[in-house]
């Protein structure tokens, strides 16, 4: 495949049916292998951006391009199996064991039983869950942090090149969240995905992203490496920085 951006938004506008406009002429290019962390207040269209990428939504205007092709030209099923999706609520299937939850997409892709088994164990190990212990448990038997790990494992099961994360660690307590951030870096160093992660927490964005985007009024108010984001003159960026000064100063090691 060509060396263009993994994902590109070209003048994308989107309005919720019968609701407010969330994206206006939105433009953004996401390079292969980078982790773009998008920060914004509630209702600034963070989740909408993710859903436009895996074609859960279609833009009203403009194009969303994934690996050189407009999402309109993708078969939605193929596109979605090509992209891992980690949600805030995790959305594990409560009637399936952890092993089966992780194995869903490989199964949809008709992998052999042996290959599914091996891959399930592999990704469970990757997210730090011992397969022997957890494979046959059910979601309700796990803690919130463990469930979130399963969510990541499930998204990685067929080794998709792109990973979308929607407030992935938002529901966790601060200590667990910090642990998950460290885990995130460890995993990303092993899998090297193109990751788009949205959050309302500047600290988390700084902790996870190789680049940071700040969303306001349906556009990108700023887009820069974490170290340079403070240079932005945009008032919205300042609001976020002001909210979390101590994290900007001390949050990164």
């Amino acid at each position, binding site marked *: 495949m060509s060396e263009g951006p993994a994902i590109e938004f070209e003048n994308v506008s989107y309005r919720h049916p019968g609701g407010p406009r969330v994206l206006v002429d939105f433009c953004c290019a996401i390079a292969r292998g980078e982790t773009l962390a998008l920060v914004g207040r509630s209702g600034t269209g963070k989740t909408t951006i993710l859903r436009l990428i*895996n074609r*859960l939504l279609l833009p009203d205007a403009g194009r969303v391009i994934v690996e050189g092709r407009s999402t309109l030209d993708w078969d*939605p*099923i*193929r*596109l*979605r*199996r090509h992209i891992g*999706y980690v*949600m*805030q*609520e*995790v*959305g*594990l*299937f*409560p*009637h*399936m*064991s952890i092993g*089966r939850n992780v194995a*869903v*997409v490989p199964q*949809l892709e008709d992998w052999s039983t042996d290959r599914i088994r091996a891959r399930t164990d592999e990704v469970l190990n990757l997210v730090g869950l011992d397969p022997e212990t957890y494979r*046959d448990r*059910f*979601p*309700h038997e796990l803690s919130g942090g463990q469930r979130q790990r399963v969510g990541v494992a*499930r998204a990685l099961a067929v080794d998709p090149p792109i990973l979308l994360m929607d407030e992935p660690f938002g529901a966790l307590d601060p200590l667990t969240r910090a642990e998950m951030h460290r885990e995130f870096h460890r995993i990303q160093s092993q899998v090297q995905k193109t990751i788009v992660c949205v959050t309302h927490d500047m600290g988390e964005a700084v902790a996870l992203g190789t680049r940071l985007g700040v969303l306001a009024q349906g556009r990108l108010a700023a887009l820069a490496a974490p170290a340079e984001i403070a240079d932005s003159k945009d008032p919205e960026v300042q609001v976020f920085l002001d909210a979390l000064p101590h994290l900007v100063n001390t949050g990164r090691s």
Partner: protein
Amino acid sequence: MRLIEFWLNNRLEFLDAILRHLALVVAAVGVAAAVGVPLGVLAHRRPRLGGPIIGIANVVQTIPSLAMFGFLIPIPLIGGIGARAALIVLFLYALLPIMRTTVSGLKSIEPPVREAGVAMGMTGWQLLKLVELPLARPSIIAGLRVATVVGVGTATIAAAIGAGGLGEYIFRGVASVDSTVILAGAIPAAVMALLADFTLGWMERRASVRRSGDHGILFRRLAIVAVAGLILLTGLLLWPDRDEGRIVIGSKNFTEQVILGELLAQLIERETSLSVERRLNLGDTLVCETAMRAGDLDLYVEYTGTALTAIFKQAVILDSEEVNRRVSSSYASTGRTMLEPLGFNNTYVILIRREDARRLKISTISHLTKFAPKMVAGFGAAFLDREDGYQGLINAYGLRFAEPPRAMDLSLTYRALAEKQVDVIAGDATNGLIAKLDLVALEDDRRYFPPYMAVPVIRTETLNRQPELRRVISILSGAIDDSQMQRMNYEADVERKEPREIVSSFLARHPELNRERHLN
């Protein structure tokens, strides 16, 4: 205990009734599930379509079951009498709870779970199969549970249209005022409902334990077996009965009719090689008439006066010969053949308690007019409706009662009279309960009631196909007089004998009805 004795004495028939009942319910609920779950899914995915679907099912649910059975009798293909119509009704009743619980089960799935499925690249079908249906399963099973329990109850009413099952005992028991027979049907039906409730409740709890593990294969095999069994069961119940060598004999839902139906059946079984299907205890005149017109019934015994006024809507005539002539030609022009009268005249009689008759010195209906304003009357619905019934009676005699007559089931009027809930009823002249309950028939001194000669009526098509039936049935021509009929009714209603037994001993008592004698 009489009840246990009854079951033991009729164990084959009892077993058959239980199996039939069960088959009806299982087949109806099974088909309703096969239709209702997909409809529920559709209603959930397309709420605009789903609203009306659920609405229609709701309306259907509010129709009383007896009315629904009545509706269906004259409708070709799906209606008529017997298991087919019963299945349709039970199916319709089962549909709503299953659809409802499917929709509510699907609605209860948390949005992120469904969204996760879509985002993972599941197609609509995969989402349904892997996520939605498994999660809605406990709710769907709850719907099956309601549908089954309701179905067991409704199926008892299906006996009214000849579908058989445990309801047959209940109707027979009500008809002959025999609580043992009622209980013989009601108790197993109740037990069946409780068992279904318990079993499905257990399944529901098991399904809601969040676990699906790897018994998927076993489940699939069970499902295949269940579906195959269901198709087989439905097929057996729906298999068309139009077998050339078969004759379907019906009867209305009171003792005398059941006995006469049984008599015809035994005679035909004895004299021919035809296989006889008994659809006894069907319902009222209308049920038998529509069933016969629809071709579901070949033969039953009607009364000339009833045929004249209730079926052919003609004015009352008192001359017996004239009535016979008219009824016979009306039947002939509607594809039926009226055969020779059996002998007795089961006219209406006005009945009161013997103690009242003595105390007030009443022996004729004319005498009754004096006391009627202080009396309460109870009549069967048919008597209130028909031309030779209530309205004509009060006009002919100038009768007036204390209050408008109470409409009740014909077979319940006798008991109501004996228990002093009413003081006057209209009964059948040959009813065995008259003696049992110590009632008195008042003389029809103004000759208001037309003749009600019992006549076998057969579909002409059937008669042409099996001409020997004419000879066989004519064996009974003039063979039963009023007192013989009353005696047989008495044996059934008072001595609690089975119709089968009563008919056998009647035939044994009357050697002149034997074939050899007849052929000579």
